[in-house]
């Protein structure tokens, strides 16, 4: 009799915990995507925190030393998005290198609060006219 009560109680607690865990998990998943994946279905990632990977587009970098604002474009050679990051560029940050920024989109601009430089020895930027291997790029940035 008492055993049954304990088991029922445990089941209720477990169900409740499971629900809490599920809700917390689904709300804190951070997707890792490339610009072209975002462009396919922007509404899917509305209000979500994202990790956006790609290459720093040459000639797009601007660092405002007064209020420490770093802006640049991140691209996967298919789609390009502007990025706004607060803070100094990390040491190895330069044009044509791989980066991953973490944050969210605001009106087509990616607002980042975490910037990681990814040196991929694997990925080679395509020659002009060559098809882009987006999968290989994504793999190399992970």
């Amino acid at each position, binding site marked *: 009799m*008492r*055993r049954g009560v*304990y088991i029922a109680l*445990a089941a209720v*607690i477990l169900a409740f*915990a499971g629900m*809490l*865990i599920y809700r*917390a*998990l689904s*709300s*804190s*998943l*951070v*997707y*890792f*995507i490339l610009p072209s994946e975002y462009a396919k279905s922007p509404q899917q990632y509305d209000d979500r*925190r994202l*990790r956006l990977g790609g290459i720093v587009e040459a000639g797009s970098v601007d660092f405002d*030393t*007064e209020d*420490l604002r770093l802006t640049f474009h991140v691209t996967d050679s298919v789609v390009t998005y502007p990025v706004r990051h*607060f*803070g*100094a*560029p*990390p*040491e*190895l940050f330069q044009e044509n290198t791989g980066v991953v920024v973490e944050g969210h989109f605001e009106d087509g601009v990616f607002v980042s609060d975490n910037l990681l430089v990814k040196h991929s020895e694997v990925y080679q930027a395509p020659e002009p006219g060559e098809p882009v291997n987006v999968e290989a790029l*994504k793999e190399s940035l*992970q």
Partner: protein
Amino acid sequence: MSLTGGGLSLAVLGGSCVFLALALAVYALVTGVIGAARRDARLQTSARLAAVAVFLAMTAAIFVMEVALLTDDFSVSYVAQHSRIASPTWVKFVTMWAALEGSILLWGWLLSAYTAALAVTAPNTILRPWALAVMQGVQVFFIGVTALAASPFRLLVDPPLDGPGPNPLLQNHWMMAVHPVLMYLGFVGLTVPFAYAMAALITRQPGVTWMTQTRRWTLTGWGFLSAAIVAGGWWSYEVLGWGGFWAWDPVENVSFLPWLTATAFIHSVQVQERRRMLKGWNLLLVTLTFALTILGTFLTRSGVISSVHAFGNGPVGPLFLGFFLLVVLFSFSLVALRWDQVRDRAELDDPVSREGAILLGNILFLAIAFAVLLGTIFPLIVEALTGDKVTVGAPFFDQVSVPVWLIIFLLMGIGPLLPWRKAEEQSLRRNLAWLAGGALAAGLIAFILGMRLVYPLLTVVVAGWNLVSLALLLHGALAPRLRLSDRSALSVFRQYAFESRRRFGSMIVHLAIIVIALGVMGASAYRIDRQMRFQFGEPVAFRGYTLVATDSFRSQTQGRLSTGAVVEVYRNGDKLATLRPRINVFGANQQSAPTPGVYYTPWHDLYLSIAGDVSEGRQSVVLRVVQSPLVAWIWIGGLVLVFGTIWSLLPGRQRVRRRTTNDGTVRA
């Protein structure tokens, strides 16, 4: 003495030592199993001697590897891949565990040391031969991986002139000499209770014998693991440059998982010792703990989850996964086979009792472990099912674990005050009134001091609750003794602390946990993290401090080039410190690691690290400025925790209890 010139290379010598150790371990396993099954004392003795021989062979292998590292012998593959001539001697020495193959060699050596120590010191019971056989089985796996799959001793016919050196993050701080070794000592230590649990199942003796015989081993393993986790947090704080100590990174999580289950086990053991309950539960917990150490090694070493520590995508991933499945399959089938002996005869009389609190605490520890495990492997599941690459953000782990921790802390306060079997209502009410009073007082003080966030306030509340609980426990232990003796309170307290080591040690550890909880609360909820630009010579105000970056500097030491800034810290016009945050570049590979400048105080730390470029000829520098309240108490709490664990482990003074038995004789 040069061994390389004489035709015998260190690679061949070291490799031979490992193969010899493997052969001896296989011999010890086979003779051990036959000897145990046939109850043949001679075979058992032979297996025990072989365990010592394995340890000697592994020690020789370790010695050869260290010689190769210290003499820059690049014909040994591991040295060529992970060491560098210009590294300082201590870095060369710790390069042994800076990468996968060396780490597993070290793990195997520590395991052989534990096994040999067990073979020599374990009491001669029916459990011993089987426990040693299980240890040997685990050892055959680890040494086998080193010998056959991930050998650090491969001979390079055409050795390079110099190597790349270890990962810069690993040679940037002396903690790397300590933290991994502590971690492995913890993991390997927790193999011992697992081996005894299996032995208990094999011999159909799932009573309390296996626990009492491994109590010290379990506590030792748990203490090393606790120390390793705190040390890892401190390393992260001092090296990674973001001013935090815990990021819920997979590699941190997988060390935390066995800690949670081992903590649950340490508590539930007492229920079985006192009430003969939870037999099966304890066997499963200790198995789970061991299995999680293997699973964790698989997750971090196979490269399935990329993180700071996941260096190496070698052949060991599938091996560790296979071994993990083997361990789980073997132990669970054993438990199923022996279910009749494992079933509990006793029932829980009343949930409001010591065992009820421990049981509930156990469930909560496992709940946290489940959530952390889920969050850690969830990205793998998602990628396997949908192809999407996701990470589980730190908020998930915080949301799920913090409320559960608060309930655990409540139990930690009330549990030790509850009697076994059934609480008596009057004393329960009185104790609860005291605890609630302490909790309210603490919460009120925090509120008056301006704390308004819910979880931090609750943390202070449970801290007050627990401090009162410890005071009540001490009072309950000392008051009767004081009444009976005419000595001073201090000497009665000393006598109690030395005689009841287990009880007093547990109080120290619980106090340490509360101190750590307060430190974590302050440093995570009230952390201030800014990036600021400093013109050289111009003061900048930050949270009551005045910071002046006076100059940049460059310094070159052996194998390391550092560039940084000199920052003077003032408060109310007094100069408090000069900090030198810097970025270090090691060797030719141009990888860098930061060293922050930290001004430590008991109330908060002021933490500066270089953000951005510090090349010469600049007029300014950008620094990341972090203020972490109470963060120092995490490390202090860690030290107290280790002290409490050691206190519990030391042999107690024998108390002479004179009791008159029914027939009038006096028993000592």
